């Protein structure tokens, strides 16, 4: 695995905390991605608001958008291939792609 790319819908911030409700899954995902990046993995999150051109240029993403509309986001590509859409990858999936053990002990 060389590269994971996530195409988010437009978001105020990458954790979704600025949105109307707290989405623990998004926070979970945001934090895990940040940790994997620190470990040196190439993971990119794109925000539709900031880099809409990528959503036009990427054929896989653009095709899905044209067909299903904005609801198909977020889209996850691994080495350019579609892996997950409409939801964020689970820790288990991320673990499989990166080989990193992601069963950490929760905070109390």
């Amino acid at each position, binding site marked *: 695995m060389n590269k994971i790319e996530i195409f988010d*819908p*437009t*978001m*105020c*911030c*990458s*954790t979704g*905390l*600025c*949105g*109307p*409700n*707290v*989405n*623990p899954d998004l*926070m*979970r995902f*945001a*934090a*895990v991605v*940040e*940790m994997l990046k620190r470990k040196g993995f190439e993971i990119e*999150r794109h*925000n*539709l*608001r*900031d880099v*809409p*051109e990528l*959503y*036009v240029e990427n054929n896989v993403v*653009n095709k899905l*958008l*044209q067909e299903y*509309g*904005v*609801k198909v986001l977020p889209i996850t590509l691994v080495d350019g291939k579609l892996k997950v859409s409409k939801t964020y990858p689970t820790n288990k999936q991320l673990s499989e792609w990166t080989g990193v053990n992601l069963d*950490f*002990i*929760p*905070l*109390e």
Partner: protein
Amino acid sequence: MDWSQFRFHSFGINKFIDMKKFNLADIGLTKYLFFTGKGGVGKTSIACATAVGLADQGKKILLISTDPASNLQDVFKQTLNDKGLTIQEVPGLTVANIDPEQAAAEYRESVIAPFKGKLPVSVIENMEEQLSGSCTVEISAFNKFADFITDKKESEEYDYIIFDTAPTGHTLRMLQLPSAWSTFISKSTHGASCLGQLSGLEQRKNIYKQAVQTLSDPQKTNLILVSRPESSPLKEAARSSHELQLLGIKNQTLIINAFLEHADDSDTITKQLHERQQKALSEMSEELSVYPIYKIPMRSYNLSNIANIRKMFNEDILANIEDNYQPLDYVNTEKELIDDLYKSGKRVIFTMGKGGVGKTTVATQIALGLAKRGAKVHLTTTDPANHLNYNLVIKAGITVSRIDEIKELEKYKNEVRSKAASTMSAEDMEYIEEDLRSPCTQEIAVFRAFAQIVEKADNEVVVIDTAPTGHTLLLLDATESYHKEVERTQGEDIPDAVRNLLPRLRNPEETEVVIVTLPEPTPVFEAERLQQDLKRAGIQNKWWVVNACFSLVDTKNPFLQSKAKSELMWIDKINKLSNNNIALIKWADL
């Protein structure tokens, strides 16, 4: 009121306040002058009078308004833009107006336009929605603001650059942002939250840094706090002063506007007004008395045109008063307003208006009136100055709550932390904390509290006094985008209170917005804009309250008679704007 007690208070604890008459030659003029203060204290007029006065001395002046509801257009009777236009009547003066909403709209369009036709409609709508938030409004306005502070050409071209800033809360946030952003830009380890949308953020880093430096350089910037000699605006001024001091802006000056020079013992109202002013000044925060303080006398004329603005610092003119002065009569007062509200059976009642017009007082009167007529009432204040008359309200059987922005933010943060803690390591929590510092987080937190209060209207009549206009509009705006967001994320964990909010606010059977204003130009123009904004948001408004009318008061004092007379044209205008649904409240010594 027991005056013997007042005298004891006034002379017993009185501090000596050295107040000079405001004079352009005296004040420490720096290249950049910022006027700030609670809405309605006259900062627009003073900023204009300063700009016009300096231009008349042959100086080159740039005057910039960042007020979301700019009054400069009204004064100069000229449509303004954000680049700056010269004013024909005042050689040497250039005026620019930054409308934050418009700046945001332009920014939004510039981002979205290239993708229309290339991305499906649902995607474009998603982008538009996200770029309609309060972050975008603040950021795009600040962007322009920073350009003016750091532009070398402008700095060379003009002798003085004067900012007529927005009402306090907004001003503070705007001035607070630079230091927060400087920290953010340098420390941020992940994609910059709210700032991510600013294209070329890194390239603008230096501009922001320079803007912050200029603001806190006493050689370059003088912050002029404007207040009236009344307790609530003075408290507000003290708070702003303190916060800005903490942000490193230490070169401050205080102006007391609308100061009544002489007590007129032959006229009760004038005497009361004078004594009330003296009392408010004697109770002024120690923190303010370290700064140079200037006074500007109360004027009996309107400051809505350049000719009068030119006179503001120098002279008074009395309107022609007929010998048989009579106060206004046969008009609706708060009694008729409350009767109508009671009969209509409305459940949610807001008092809205610019800061300083007396929203809290009017909300309290409405709550008391409804309770007296037999309604079960809940009263909520979002005003940080929080000057409710608790004893009176509690005695009437009214329940009271307060939306405390700081507490609500903390509550929301804790909720997030507890949800996050179950899935996250300690290190990752830091990442979450970063986003919790975003300005949107605060808006969301306050909004949730607001929704919960409105939900009480299921069981009782809820009267809410909202915070100053700029903030109120943001709140409404948040309501709107929140509502859309709710529709999109149906089925997720959204409280019923939030889901029900906007439909309830839009239902004229349930909700009434009472616009509160004063019989003076600035508050009336602002209220007119507020009415338009409410219309856009689809929210019903019937009643207008004109607070603190001297025209209802029987006074012998020619100065106050003249002031009363100058109110009439504004009362007339409001009568038209409100379709005759106008209630006047007499100026009173509260």
